[in-house]
């Protein structure tokens, strides 16, 4: 397993006003697979990802990243763990505006004081097709290019696992498809493990497996999804049809 959660509870507040963002969640993320986490707003999907990635602490339960139990780790260890073993792609603002594309890509390794593995770096850069954009600053890149740089950064350090938080949420459908294509290929060709939070059924369809969260619990686990099946499931889960409104893009 690349990552696992056991009886993970994340609660905010206390007493009457106690809100369970995660309610005894058990989940295993398989190595070398592309997993999508879906659910309506407030379902706890982002919280789950943040906890798995060591960005957020849990109230109780146990989270492992590979063989390492990360619950209870101190900030210093967690930081090291994120630096050396985890890659991130956020929805927006992924890049440091003061660094050029290449510097952004190698930043986690630079911070760690490691030399990038040049052949691998070349392969990653070529995979995301950024060879001629490496010296550009983020402001000189389009939104799609920026996200591709973020993907390259996540891949370049060869982390055990990459977490994406709505990585295509801010992109138009073509750029989004491009980025998702790269993520898919990195799983297929490079054997990368990826976990991605999304509310877009089309994006989720790129994954090998889709986990559905509602009210802090895992309510479904779908293998080899297609956009139609994902949308169907979302509609049935929300029950009142609101999901249709919250799923932008819909079917094309």
């Amino acid at each position, binding site marked *: 397993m690349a990552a696992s959660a056991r009886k993970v509870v994340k609660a905010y507040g206390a007493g009457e006003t106690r809100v369970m963002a995660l309610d005894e969640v058990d989940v295993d993320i398989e190595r070398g697979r592309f997993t999508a986490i879906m659910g309506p707003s407030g379902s706890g999907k982002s919280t789950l990802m943040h906890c798995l990635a060591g960005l957020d602490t849990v109230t109780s339960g146990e989270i492992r990243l590979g063989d390492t139990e990360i619950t209870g780790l101190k900030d210093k260890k967690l*930081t*090291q763990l*994120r630096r050396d073993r985890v890659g*991130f792609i*956020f929805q927006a*603002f992924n890049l*440091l505006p*003061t*660094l050029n594309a290449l510097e952004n890509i190698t*930043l986690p390794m630079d911070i760690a004081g490691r030399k990038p593995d040049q052949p691998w770096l070349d392969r990653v850069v070529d995979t995301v097709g950024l060879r001629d954009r490496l010296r550009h600053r983020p402001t000189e890149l389009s939104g799609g290019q920026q996200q591709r740089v973020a993907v390259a950064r996540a891949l370049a350090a060869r982390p055990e696992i990459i977490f994406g938080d709505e990585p295509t949420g801010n992109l138009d459908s073509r750029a989004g498809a491009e980025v998702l294509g790269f993520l898919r290929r990195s799983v297929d060709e490079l054997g990368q493990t990826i976990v991605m939070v999304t509310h877009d059924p089309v994006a989720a369809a790129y994954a090998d497996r889709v986990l559905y969260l509602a009210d802090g619990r895992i309510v479904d686990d779908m293998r080899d999804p297609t956009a139609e099946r994902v949308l169907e499931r979302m509609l049935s889960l929300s029950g009142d049809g609101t999901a249709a409104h919250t799923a932008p893009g819909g079917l094309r």
Partner: protein
Amino acid sequence: MTVVRTSLRNFVAHKGRMVLSAIAVMLSVAFVSGTLVFTDTMNTTFDKLFASTSSDVTVTAERNEDAQQTGKPASIPADTAQRLEKLDGVASAQSDVYDERITLVDDRNENLSPTTGAPTIAGDWGPEEKKSMKLISGKAPRGPTEVVVDADTADKHGLAAGDAVKVISFTGTTEARISGIAKFTATNPGAALVFFDRPTAQKKLLGSTDQVTAVMLTAAEGTSDAQLKKAVAAELGGGYQVRTAKEAADSAADEVGEFLDFMRYALLGFAGISVLVGIFLIVNTFSMLVAQRTRELGLMRAIGAGRGQVNRSVLIEALLLGVVGSVLGIAAGVGIAVGLMQLMGTVGMNLDTSDLTIKASTPLVGLLLGIVVTVLAAYLPARRAGKVSPMAALRDAGTPADGRTGTVRTVFGLLLTAAGAAGLWLATRAETAGDGSGLLALGIVFSLIGFVVIGPLLAGLVVRAISAVVLRFFGPVGRMAERNALRNPRRTGATAAALMIGLALVAALSVVGSSMVASANDQLDKTVGADFIIASDVGQPLTPAVAKAVHAAPHLAHVTDYKNVNAELTAPDGKKEKTRLAAADPTYAQDLRTETDAGELSAAYGRDAMSVPAAYAKKHGIEVGDRVAVAFTGGKTARLTVAAITTDGTSLDQGAMYLAIATVERYLPADEMPANVLMFAQAEEGKAEQAYAALKERMKDYPQYQIRDQADYKQTLQDQIGQLLNMVYGLLALAIIVAVLGVVNTLALSVVERTREIGLLRAIGLSRRQLRRMIRLESVVIALFGAGLGLGLGMAWGAASQQLLALEGLGVLDIPWPTIITVFLGSALVGLVAALVPAFRAGRMNVLGAIATE
């Protein structure tokens, strides 16, 4: 109203971001109002003192400012009081005896007189004294060996009744025992007082029991002071000075007032510098707030707010900041004034807090200053806010980078800098110091403004250079720090400029100061032949007894008397000029080998000869051999031949006109002959040490005078300049503190602005330690940048000043590298300190919260 409400809410919402700006306003206003309150209080204190010590009408001997400084106290016949008592309109007439140039020492010859420049006054314990002082222990003095001393002096030196003291006056030394201690009923601003009984005071201070110093008159009911003055003047005729209480108090206040005014303007000048520095901080704060609120401002515009309204909303915030800062500043100013009063207490000037004077104008000035400065500083950012387009509301957040420096700005800045450089360069080429000083001032102002304007441009160059040297040791963290410092050159430039101003002044003054020391040392080595110099540090003339003691000392090749003689000169061209001549023994030509442009200096000490400085000779077209009419004040007019023209390129005795004392004696009666102000001595060959020891031994009884050999003299000079510089540095510290607040402010606001970025960095594995280091390095780079510019600019100013002052004898340029390097490295430390809080806060940020920030 909506605009005001929005501003108010913004102000409150961002109060954390306003804190440092408010502190900057507060500090500046506090310094200004503190200065005003303090100097007003001093004025009140002195006014009260003078009012309490002056009678309706005071009669003294005529006092002429031009009179020769013979050292002897002026006096009037003792029977004046009896004469005046009989006049109509006089209720009472009291004689008074006093002398202000006294030195009080204890039985071990330790000086008990104040060293602050306040006088030591000896007098008689008479009715006039009892008006403002009362005996608090012991008894009144009686007989030739008893004195009463004031309580402050007694406290300071642990004196009590029965202790032996010596009172050294111009006429001699009196050994006495303390019979009692008296306390001032008003505030004693630091003078030491000692009282004899009447006959002793007359004899010891005035030399005769037939004389008194003054007669104090009280007007009878129904007679005004002015009427009484008129009657008294008519009765006495010439040779007396008759003054009403108001005139006496005014003239005394004028003397003190000049000093107080000087102090006030000097302090206000330094306050002005810190105000200037504060402006940069405020500009930065508002620029950053406006940048951060671009979306919000865009929204306001989108829903229909006009440009003016948006503009006004920012200005109203500035107004609020100005009000808050000023009010706090005025309160703090009173605190500063009280602190200064306490400080004066430690140097012997006791000011009473009950005299604390806060004029209505003080808070007004403070408020006005704070508000005007803040609103002015916020004007440009406010205008930029008004220009935010409604579209900004729709764009993705992210702070818009300020981008490149405008071409206009660059060209304008370069032109100003070039003009400044030209001014400085021309100043060094100036023919006369007068022409040059204007150019120098222009050069300084233009180069300063030029540097401020091209600051952003320089930021790019200098920060990269500093990074290349310093930051590359810190890997990617260093690189990010460099990029952050360069991200917004205008902001970095303004932050650094604030620091630059203070440090430029420090550098310039330290260059001038150390050049002064170096030039003087150089001059001393080249021109001073005398081994020993005898003088009083507080400017007292040398008493005849001291002169005698020096002349009698063994192992001396020669002793030179040096006097200042007042006279009116009439040049051959008919122009008259009141001046002070330097009369000395001919050996002075060996003691100070001043170079001459024409003639021989030694010839100037011949009979009916003199020397004039080159400037005077040039002004009046005088050549060697010409004659100058010299009307000695209180003596006859002599026609003296100019035997030498001395160079202006000297810092010692510059502009002095020399002549022999023997020449003066021919035209000035003996009782008008001024006392020595300086004495010089030359040891016999190889006997320097013995001579020095012998002189010291002989001078033991006169601790009010200092005897120095050349090494001592150099040290004293260096100490004096060093002290002066330290004082100036101390006052500049305020400006530097405000500048450091500016660095803190910029960093703190940048950290807020870059919250998301910091979150991202932390998410992808930047440790807290690395994050803090990144912010610290950014701070250090900004500080070093400001210090580099400031020190460079300051050294250029200092060097240009020295080149200009070379005309006035400041011939040696000495750049105090240890000081400069210490300041530069110190500024790196300042950068580290400035980053402490911002770095700590950045480190504590919640990673997820930071990423989610809009």
